[in-house]
């Protein structure tokens, strides 16, 4: 299943840009830890409001060194800034908002995604901790609560193993929630018919993507280069 060659795809920054292009104006969005956080760099000036599960709406860009406030962080514990219209609330309210369906989109990282849109992201069994504990954080609530879940992740593991699987082998975050997968190599939509390869990175072919993807991909009739 592993590709022999190491495919060269998009940088993390351009993956974030591709995700940003997917977000709708007038929407409320939560960005998870990792690559998803980088999406915030691409939406400045757009009519998109970011929620931070620590308890903030309209989270601004990362704070520069001279503007760090210790009481103003995002969910990744990075110092952030306010925007006009920012407001604060408790953790409980933050998750009421998330579970209640008020996030139009959540962008999450993942360890694995299945062809049915199952998401595994909170625990890597290779770390060897008991299987029922780990850093769940806000991931499960976001995965079930958001109206749309986009996964942004590298296409394969550091060892070259596919992360898009027929079935997730790692502990699940949620079942059947992912609708779009953006990786360094491809954009893949999760449909009732199966995974549809919609876009490929420059210089990457559909065959290349299939070679590092466990389930069979349906090639879109409109297959295109990733729209950046």
């Amino acid at each position: 299943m592993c590709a022999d060659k190491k495919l060269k795809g998009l940088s993390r920054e351009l993956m974030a840009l591709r995700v940003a292009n997917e977000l709708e104006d007038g929407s409320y969005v939560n960005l998870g830890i990792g690559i998803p956080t980088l999406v915030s760099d691409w939406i400045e000036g757009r009519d998109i409001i970011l929620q931070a599960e620590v308890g903030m709406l309209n989270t601004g860009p990362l704070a520069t060194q001279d503007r760090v406030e210790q009481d103003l962080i995002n969910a990744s514990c990075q110092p952030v800034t306010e925007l006009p219209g920012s407001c604060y609330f408790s953790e409980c309210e933050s998750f009421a908002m998330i579970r209640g369906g008020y996030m139009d989109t959540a962008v999450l990282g993942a360890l694995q995604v299945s062809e049915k849109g199952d998401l595994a992201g909170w625990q890597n069994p290779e770390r060897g901790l008991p299987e029922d504990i780990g850093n769940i954080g806000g991931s499960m609530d976001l995965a079930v609560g958001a109206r749309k879940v986009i996964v942004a992740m590298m296409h394969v593991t550091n060892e070259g193993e596919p992360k898009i699987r027929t079935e997730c082998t790692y502990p699940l975050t949620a079942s059947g929630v992912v609708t779009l997968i953006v990786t360094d190599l491809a954009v893949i939509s999760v449909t009732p018919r199966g995974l549809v390869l919609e876009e490929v990175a420059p210089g990457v072919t559909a065959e290349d993507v299939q070679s590092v993807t466990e389930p069979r991909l349906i090639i879109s009739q409109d297959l295109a280069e990733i729209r950046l």
Partner: protein
Amino acid sequence: MDKVYPSVDEAVADIPDGASIAIAGFFTAGTPVPLIRALVRQGAKDLTVICMQMGPGNEDINHLVANKQVKKAICNYPFYRSASRGASSPTEMAVRAGELEMEVFPMGTFIEKLRAAGAGIAAFYTPTGVGTVVETGKEKRKFGDREYLLEEALKPDYAFVYAYKSDRMGNLVCHKTARNYTPEMAAAGKITIAAVESIVEPGQLDGDAVHVPGVYVQRVVKVDRPAYFPSID
């Protein structure tokens, strides 16, 4: 109704062995560090701590573990993200050695269980965790066309919370993202102890801008504003 205690040590003095303690704070923000340090000095054992994390962003809770005071931890993001950093963390070592019992909940479920306890709700049905290891041993039930898990209230004996300002009656005002777990943990705790940067006389807070009504807070103690750079490993 003057709830001000002269020191953090006096505020935590009566905590007995075996107590359960909810501790506010989201990584670095709003963690009542001086109360945790006082509890290390106080030495109560066999504690159950109920808090987001056991080290990341704040080492002090880890000190309770290193000091062999913790029997059980109930968390939502207990470990360092870095496996190598985790390998030397007292909490992760104690978990691996089977010396520390741990229970983990999704963040929303975690704080909703505390909210339920403070609000007199025995249990609730949440969609979070269905189809995952979180559902193990829990009742699953359909409402409409969706499945939900039954989660019960979690009532701690004590709650340690943090506020920017308070009055002597225990009304608390929080600051930006340091609010996080404080309001619902304050309501959940049978005895809630608030570490506060500035304590004013009743009437000096805007009643519309109070985040935690004083009825939930039994003890208030002045602490110095901490200075740290927000980050986690």
